[in-house]
């Protein structure tokens, strides 16, 4: 258990460090950084490396936004494996990500609950 926590800490932390390097070193905006990471996650899954990383690091690999690219690609690939080229297309419409649905749901709920407050400093 504890080793799992530590590996997820280290792997998750390292992915964030890569993000920080993109932001500070390459002067990317947060949106550019996150998009880059999502695309990398998707490519990593394409060459079959992301799933082993999840096996290794658990939440350290599923919580960073890279896993978003991974799950999308994984869905598309699973369909492609079954139905060939046409599966890539149909797969695209089948894949879901709990991140998006959760963000939409809690975004609306959050807007309901929270009022505007004074800016804090």
């Amino acid at each position, binding site marked *: 258990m504890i*080793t799992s926590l530590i590996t997820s800490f280290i792997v998750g932390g390292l992915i964030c460090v890569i993000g920080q390097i993109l932001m500070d070193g390459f002067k990317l905006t947060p949106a550019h950084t996150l998009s880059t990471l999502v695309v990398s996650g998707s490519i990593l899954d394409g060459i079959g490396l992301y*799933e082993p*990383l999840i*096996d*290794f690091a658990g939440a350290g690999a599923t919580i960073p936004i890279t896993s978003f690219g991974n*799950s999308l690609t*994984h869905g598309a690939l699973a369909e492609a494996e079954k139905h060939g080229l046409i599966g890539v297309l149909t797969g695209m419409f089948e894949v879901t990500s709990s991140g998006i649905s959760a963000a939409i749901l809690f975004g609306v709920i959050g807007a309901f609950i929270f009022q505007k407050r004074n800016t804090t400093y």
Partner: protein
Amino acid sequence: MKKILYISLVLLLLTACSNEREEAIYPAEEAPQLEEILNKQDTINGYRSVLNDEDILVAIDIKRMKRFNKEKIEKNLKKQLEEKFPDKEILVTGDLKVRWELEKVMDNQLNTEKLSETIEEIKSLSKEET
């Protein structure tokens, strides 16, 4: 900040060394052959296995640094077991959930009927893929 890093490093080393091999097969006396194969594995820290007339469920605790190859290790072991037990359905997994479920089976000393029910449940659980 650095302190936390050091502490976590020390913890990592400690836990890496202190993992004891936990091995258990239920019902215990059933399968000396199975035990033999499982004990040979050097990529795992331990295992839990439950079997009845049709199925063998094995939950392995894969060593931390070998977990990258989780799928391969599972497949490999499954193949070995299938050779030895051609008439049984075999499930090998490194999944924590299955391990915990098998522990429950062992703790509750389930009898045959309940056992096969639970085994079916566990099998369907592990089939679910995201």
